[in-house]
């Protein structure tokens, strides 16, 4: 635990990894199967991708457990495998990060349950809390270094996840990030949560890092980071997409280049952002470019 929080207290700037979904598809994720299928059936592929991100210079490597709650796995008939999936995903990244003192940290991903909570939908906050608690317990036991709650839209669901993580993995730091969209009045999640509400709600629930991931590219992420760093009392993390997906013939591409992404990194660091990584569509090359930008900025600072 101290590894991460100590570094943040020292003022270190950290680099996250990039996308997993696109990497898994390139390596034969069967159509119709969720990304977590790979952790279950071919953990060696997880290890291979994790190794690419370690080599690219990531300080944290995310596990393939975004949809690892019972709610999400049930959609694919994989609920019975939930323990194995979450455990194998952590262990595979662990093998790639190695055991050196300064090794990359295993950042255990926890994504939304996919349910609408009461009163908007039919799922109780207690039910999602239980699902998160169960997943986090497995992730922690398997050796995760931190819990990474991400792509959240509903603040109640996000804070339930943070609390569940603090209860079931009391020794691990928790990073919690939500996904914001531009609105005439500022940036809000789909469920109408402002950046300021997210920051204070997540920190009050016990998150050690708060921030934003996914979304529509670096340009907006810089603006979101401005609001995040203005209001947050805890370190801020941002992990943007490589822009919005575009169609080229029968394939889909993310067009924001590693260079374009890295060019905005100094602004983020000037604002005080503690961790910069990538979300959908980013690659080891994006991480390499961000790493270079962060190192260059730190050398100047």
């Amino acid at each position, binding site marked *: 635990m101290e590894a991460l929080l100590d570094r943040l207290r020292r003022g270190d700037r950290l680099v996250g990894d990039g996308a997993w979904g696109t990497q898994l*598809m390139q390596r034969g994720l069967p*159509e*119709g199967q*969720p990304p977590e299928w790979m952790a279950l059936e071919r953990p060696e592929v997880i290890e291979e991708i994790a190794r690419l991100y370690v080599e690219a210079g990531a300080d944290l490597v995310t596990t393939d457990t975004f949809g690892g709650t019972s709610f999400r796995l049930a*959609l*694919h008939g994989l609920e019975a495998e939930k323990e194995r999936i979450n455990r194998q995903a952590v262990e595979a990244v662990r093998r790639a990060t190695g055991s050196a003192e300064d090794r990359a940290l295993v950042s255990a991903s926890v994504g939304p349950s*996919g349910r*609408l909570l009461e*009163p*908007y*939908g039919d799922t109780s906050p207690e039910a999602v809390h239980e699902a998160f608690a169960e997943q986090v317990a497995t992730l922690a036991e398997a050796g995760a270094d931190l819990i990474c709650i991400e792509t959240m839209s509903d603040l109640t669901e996000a804070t339930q996840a943070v609390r569940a993580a603090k209860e079931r993995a009391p020794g691990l730091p928790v990073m919690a990030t939500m996904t914001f969209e531009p*609105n*005439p*009045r500022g940036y*809000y999640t*789909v*469920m*109408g949560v402002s950046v300021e509400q997210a920051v204070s709600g997540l920190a009050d629930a016990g998150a050690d890092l708060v921030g934003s991931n996914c979304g529509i590219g670096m340009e907006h992420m810089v603006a979101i980071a401005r609001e995040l760093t203005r209001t947050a009392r805890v370190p801020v993390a941002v992990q943007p997409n490589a822009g*919005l*997906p*575009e*169609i080229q013939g*029968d*394939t*889909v591409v993310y067009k924001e280049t590693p260079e374009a992404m890295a060019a905005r990194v100094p602004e983020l660091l000037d604002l005080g952002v503690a961790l910069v990584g990538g979300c959908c569509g980013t690659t080891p090359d994006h991480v390499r470019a961000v790493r270079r930008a962060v190192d260059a900025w730190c050398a100047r600072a």
Partner: protein
Amino acid sequence: MDILKQIADSLQKGDDPRVGALAAEALEKGIPAGDVLQDGLIAGMNVVGEQFRLREIFLPDVLLAARAMYAGLEILRPHLAKEGVPLRGKVVLGTIKGDLHDIGKNLVGIMLKGAGFEVIDLGHDVAPEAFVDAAVREEASLIGMSALLTTTMTRMREVVDLVESRGLSGQIKTIVGGAPLSPDFAREIGADDYASDGATAVERVKALLGVT
């Protein structure tokens, strides 16, 4: 205040018990169920949809308004049938084969129902033939398809092609949506329209089916 106006206002506030009670009261007063639907529930929902489209309100407000709409519809339904008032049209919805993301599609369904459409929800991982078969069987006039994955979105073209090859073009309209999609993509695969979110979907479906 006019009771139909009160129904519209309560619906906008998401006050479902009050919408139900007011709908029953309106019927007791002898107001035709069709008027309660059109000038109360749908009038209120139109305001909510427009506010959402202009991003003045957020999804939770729309979900609560839709819930209030259902409460009112429950009261009206037997009377609407008696009066012979048709609902606004029937649509078939689903997430395309290979894709299991159904949150966006569910929201579109909630909002279409909220706007008075009859919605046949085929769920997720729906094969192209299943979309067209269901639309024919249910005599639906529109197929709505959703995809969140960039790997599955390209399959929507098969549904559009099937509608055409079975000679159903014009009779069954198609509309697509989902995070990675764009109007250009819809045009490229030959879909009749594209909607970026639930409120826009309601507007576009109304336009495609020629209802107000």
